[in-house]
């Protein structure tokens, strides 16, 4: 190996790792911002959910039957929702209050509800709520559950015995009815968001410093000075590609640390109810697959960034070209977010998309060696193709010296 390859790599790395601004923006900021962002979001969601669940809403009942009011009192439902009786002439006003968020529920019973029940006339109950107001939406669940038990109670009175209404019990004596692999369940939550985040952060890491490495040299005029040294152009190109890959990996590790650190408080965003995130335990194989997918994806990104950078005359131009590519990476990530991981194997060959799907399967503990080979092989193939293109472009005088 040409020792000057190391010289180029060392110089590029020194450029990044001795620049406090770049260290902060590419290595510290991603971790800190992800940690702060997801921790805050997780905590806020938790707080909001608890608040909504604990809130005692207000309900107006028009033509309230005795049986309903008595049963609500008896079942202590008045502790869950405050019940006030209202007038039929004010119905429109009550509806406006619900729309404005001043009232959670409105129930309108048919007149003479109790006697209609007694005479088998099947009376009606109108129930109104506001589905864009969290308190009202939650109150609807509570009243619907209560109405079910109220109906059973009325049925029991009709038959003469409440116990006669119950034909069977469901899950009597069963402590945990949801049977699942806790590890898979925890991973499934992660597989929604993590693959997309990894794909995006890896690219943004490469994108943050890539334009300066090549387009910056062209803009400063140092590229010509470099190219008249006896170093082969391929060596210069490879030195820059490798250095950028190192920076991109370090930057993505920073993002990854941020994600892991935010897990305890962000768990509520990722996991289903009752899933313990601590159950997620990766083995050596999973970590090896993760590293392999990330490294090959980085190599693909770095080659794309270098290619764009080399074709640009200035850092500004490179950043302009980079924006739509960044959008493509984000779209690839978003399309897989709610997709099932079980896609046809040939789709694993699609650059970026295949890697994100592979990561999705990895977190769901459903990744196979064949999938890894397909996606990593594809990333390496496209990266190699682009590195070959970069070498050609480094020798293309029109590209290197155009103004």
């Amino acid at each position, binding site marked *: 190996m040409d020792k*000057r390859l190391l*010289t*180029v790599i060392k*110089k590029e790395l*020194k*450029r990044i790792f*001795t*620049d406090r601004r770049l260290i902060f923006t590419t290595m510290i900021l991603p971790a800190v911002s992800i940690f702060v962002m997801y921790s805050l979001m997780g905590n806020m969601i938790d707080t909001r959910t608890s608040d909504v669940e604990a809130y005692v809403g207000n309900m107006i009942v028009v033509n309230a039957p005795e049986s309903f009011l008595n049963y609500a009192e008896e079942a202590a439902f008045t502790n869950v929702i405050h019940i006030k009786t209202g007038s039929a002439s004010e119905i429109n006003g009550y509806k406006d209050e619900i729309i404005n968020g001043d009232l959670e529920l409105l129930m309108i019973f048919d007149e003479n509800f109790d006697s209609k029940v007694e005479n088998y006339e099947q009376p009606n109950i109108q129930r109104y709520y506001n589905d864009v107001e969290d308190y009202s939406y939650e109150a609807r669940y509570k009243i619907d559950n209560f109405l079910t038990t109220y109906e059973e109670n009325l049925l029991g009175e009709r038959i003469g015995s409440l116990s006669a209404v119950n034909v069977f019990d469901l899950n009597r004596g069963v402590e945990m009815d949801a049977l699942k692999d806790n590890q898979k369940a925890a991973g499934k939550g992660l597989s929604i968001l993590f693959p997309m985040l990894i794909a995006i952060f890896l690219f943004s890491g490469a994108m943050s410093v890539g334009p300066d490495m090549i387009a*910056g040299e062209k803009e*400063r*005029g*140092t590229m*010509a*000075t*470099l*190219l*008249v*040294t*006896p*170093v*082969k152009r391929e060596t210069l190109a490879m030195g820059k590609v490798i250095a950028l890959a190192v920076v991109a990996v370090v930057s993505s590790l920073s993002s990854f640390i941020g994600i892991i650190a935010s897990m305890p408080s962000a768990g509520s965003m990722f996991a289903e109810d009752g899933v313990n995130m601590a159950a997620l335990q990766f083995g050596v194989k999973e970590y090896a697959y993760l590293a392999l997918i990330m490294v090959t994806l980085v190599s693909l990104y770095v080659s794309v960034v270098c290619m764009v950078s080399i074709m640009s005359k200035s850092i500004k131009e490179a950043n302009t070209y980079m924006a739509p590519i960044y959008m493509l990476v984000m779209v690839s990530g978003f399309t897989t977010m709610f997709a099932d991981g079980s896609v046809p194997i040939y789709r694993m060959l699609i650059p970026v998309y295949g890697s994100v799907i592979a990561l999705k399967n990895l977190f769901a503990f459903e990744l196979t060696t064949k999938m890894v080979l397909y996606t990593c092989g594809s990333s390496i193939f496209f990266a190699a193709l682009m590195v070959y293109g970069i070498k050609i472009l480094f020798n293309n*005088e*029109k590209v*290197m*010296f155009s103004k």
Partner: protein
Amino acid sequence: MVSVKNITKVFKLSKKQMKKDNTRTSTKVAVKNLSFQAHPGEIFGLLGPNGAGKTTTLRCISTLIKPTEGHVEVMGFDNQQASSEVRSRIAFLTNELKLDEHFTASDTIQYFGELHNMSQEEIHQRRDELFDYFKISEFKNRKIAEFSTGMKQKLSIAVSLIHDPEVVIFDEPTNGLDIITARAVTDYLKELRTQGKVVIVSTHIMNVASKLCDKIGIILDGEMVLTGTLSEILEETKTDELEDAFFKLYAGKEGYHG
């Protein structure tokens, strides 16, 4: 010796460039059948207006671009067949060079020294020589961002000369410099001549060409219209000053608009 033999350089134009140049032809002849020789201990000046083909010629000599036709030999090496040998013997400096301001002067010169395969001892010795000459030794560990424009230009020259090349090629070396720095640069070019280097500079400034160069080649529209010493050019054009000679040649170049 640098020997340029009948080089022609044709660039393909993009549609955007064709529109910009207001032309229907998809190619542009930047340099046409151009020849000259520059010898050790001599400063050869390429004089011409902007767009005449000076930079293209210098880039062809420096191996940065390949001539479409013709040959260039540098110290006996063909710059197509033995480009690496050529590159180890030349320095190419453009006034557009802006070194990365994040690095110190020492870091920068160290990097280029290593790229030229020099040992640490050679780099340090050569660095000290150049920094002493340009009076930037006391600033060697400061970041380039803290340097004045003049100091940056001096450092750029030092960087390009770290490997003590036999051939020094400067594209518009004094362009945009203040009078003191410009003088320091031209003094150094004279010093290089004294050291027996082949020095090739391009310029559009008559004063630089007449005072600095031992030989002058006047380029118009990609063609070398006249080569010789200042007195030879004046005699040939029957003028008293280089500027008059230049405009006489310029007027005689039919259809040329610079």
